[in-house]
């Protein structure tokens, strides 16, 4: 199993400001000097992750104290120079919110050549609320996503003459990538899914499919992917095509690990602070999905405990572990939890590890990453070598 270090690069001093952490939080709460210090610190942690044998994952959000990385590619352009070994994963670029897909392709190509072909590219729909920042049309969002995707891939893999392009949302007279990407035909492409249906297209395209903090749902996402993959390609989907994102807090002793987990838990409570009108702009989701959401009410999207009950609104660390959102404890504990989760969901080849989250300090992050790299990472190599013996029945 490959493990990727990930941090949302939060501006955590703003967590004390009452109210929403996204969209409406005024920028006056941001001290730019503090922001600079924090961003440099998170980059230092990524550089450490490179030395410790992790892959590196960055994301982006907008108008949010919970995530200061406003451009995957800006962050990765720095890390392309400052790291030597790590695969560099952008997960991801919200392409349907970008007004200029060719600019996206250019940045992908530039970081790929800068890094010596270490880039991996996630093209994502992104959080629903981000259409309020991009101001792109929420209706038919999905259609625009695939239109942008097609154009970006065409641009990346083009080795023939320059071409012109005209589709519903995008028109270009001359598509010509200088530089073009080092990895051919394109850097490896990732997408995210949160249901078995949304993973089908990813399987057909042979893209890596990641699911974030979804607990038991990961099993159905991966199942959907594997089924579609087998149908499309006539072979079993390799584990390396599947990824799960969870929070990891470890330390030499359980007490310290749980203290770290408490600080990282703040990620969940702050990310949830978003006003209702921004959660699901009209048209962003299909009508049928919106009807289901209205019928199910607010509990519908809560992750589940192993008992099947929804995760409570302010869960304990034990409940987060139970739901598969956090892996916490000594290296032995964490290894056992990951191994169990791996079996529960039918296996996956990539652990996207939030090794820093919430208010976790630099010193604690360094120790968290180092301890995991020394005592857990090597043991995970034995997972994901072949199709696992899956105990689906054990997972309600």
């Amino acid at each position: 199993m490959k493990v990727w270090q990930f941090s949302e690069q939060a501006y955590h001093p703003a967590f004390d400001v009452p109210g929403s952490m996204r969209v409406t939080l005024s920028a006056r709460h941001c001290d730019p000097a503090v922001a600079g210090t924090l961003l440099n610190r998170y980059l230092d942690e990524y550089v450490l992750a490179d030395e410790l044998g992790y892959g590196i994952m960055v994301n982006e959000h907008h108008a949010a104290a919970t995530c200061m990385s406003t451009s995957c590619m800006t962050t990765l352009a720095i890390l392309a120079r400052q790291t030597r070994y790590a695969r560099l994963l952008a997960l991801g670029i919200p392409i349907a919110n970008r007004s200029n897909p060719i600019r996206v392709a250019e940045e992908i190509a530039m970081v790929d050549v800068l890094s010596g072909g270490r880039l991996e590219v996630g093209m994502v729909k992104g959080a629903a609320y981000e259409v309020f920042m991009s101001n792109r049309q929420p209706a038919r969002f999905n259609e625009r996503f695939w239109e942008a995707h097609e154009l970006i891939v065409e641009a990346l893999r083009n080795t023939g003459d320059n071409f012109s392009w005209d589709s519903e949302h995008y028109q270009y007279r001359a598509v010509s990538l200088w530089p073009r990407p080092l990895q051919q035909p394109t850097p490896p492409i990732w997408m995210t899914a949160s249901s078995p249906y949304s993973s089908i297209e990813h399987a057909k395209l042979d893209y890596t499919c990641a699911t974030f903090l979804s607990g038991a749902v990961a099993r159905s996402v991966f199942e959907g992917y594997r089924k579609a993959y087998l149908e499309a390609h006539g072979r079993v989907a390799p584990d390396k095509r599947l990824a799960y994102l969870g929070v990891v807090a470890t330390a030499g002793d359980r007490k310290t690990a749980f203290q770290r987990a408490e600080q990282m838990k703040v990620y969940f409570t702050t990310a949830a602070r978003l006003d209702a009108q921004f959660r699901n702009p009209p048209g962003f989701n299909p009508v049928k999905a919106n009807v289901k959401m209205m019928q199910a009410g607010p509990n519908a999207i809560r992750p589940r405990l192993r008992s099947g009950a929804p995760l409570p609104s302010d869960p304990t660390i034990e409940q987060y572990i139970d739901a598969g959102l956090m892996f916490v404890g000594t290296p032995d504990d964490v290894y056992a939890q990951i191994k169990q989760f791996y079996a529960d969901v039918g296996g996956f080849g990539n652990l996207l590890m939030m090794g820093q989250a919430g208010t976790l300090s630099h010193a604690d992050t360094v120790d968290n990453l180092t301890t995991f790299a020394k005592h857990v990472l090597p043991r995970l190599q034995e997972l994901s070598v072949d199709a696992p013996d899956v105990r689906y029945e054990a997972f309600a």
Partner: protein
Amino acid sequence: MSTEAAPADFLSQAKFVEIQGLKLELVIKGHGPPLLFLHGMDGVEGCARIIDLLARDFTVYAPSHPGFGASELPRPFSSIDDLAYFYLDFLDHFDLNEVTMVGFSLGGWIAAEILVKDSSRVSKLVLGAPLGLRTQEKRAIQVADLFMIDPKQMDATLQVTPARNGTLGALPEPMLERIARNAEAVALFGWSPYLYNPKLHLRLHRIRVPAVLLWGEEDRLAPLGYAKTFATKLRHGRLETLAACGHRIYVDCPEAAAARIVNFEPAKPQLRSVP
């Protein structure tokens, strides 16, 4: 959903008609001269009460706009112009003449967009708190942004009448589907520019039929200042306000609004001067 008449009863009167290949949900009711009723953002069912009142004096044609209610939304439709041209086909389809055109809110915008293109089948126009003119100038907001409002505050922003509370999820599935489709259609036609057409103000003078603008004095979405801009751009229009009335005129004062529509008698010579 804020309607006086039960939406299900009202909608049971709806039929489907195919116009230029588009399956349209349409209520036709009443007797008298033709009236085309163009509903606002909450769908034709939101206007049930005033449609019933108007049906006493008119043959009311009350469609669900393409994308709203149960009306189809052709994939190429993406702007208010598409709706305006569609309604010109609608008037041709039924061969309606001397039509009284009534539009509220978003429907008022659609009515204006129809008539700047062709007003030959229409004799009178009633715009109830129409949108469509510039809603913001740089940082100066003229029309509140509904997409930025807490859903719990939505009814209080749009109407003076207290909203009936109920659990959304308990509504029958077809009603939930209508709510979701109506909301999506508002986004499709009004997300950005926010509920306006930057060219409409250059074209409003082309509306050559007599018009009346009805406006709620307590419209918290598009206040009276916005109404006055509309009135000055409309060559043959006058502004009439309604007391104790918000943006949803059809919810807050359907009787008063219906009476203004029924009694709207423009000077005949002006009417006949329409080219």
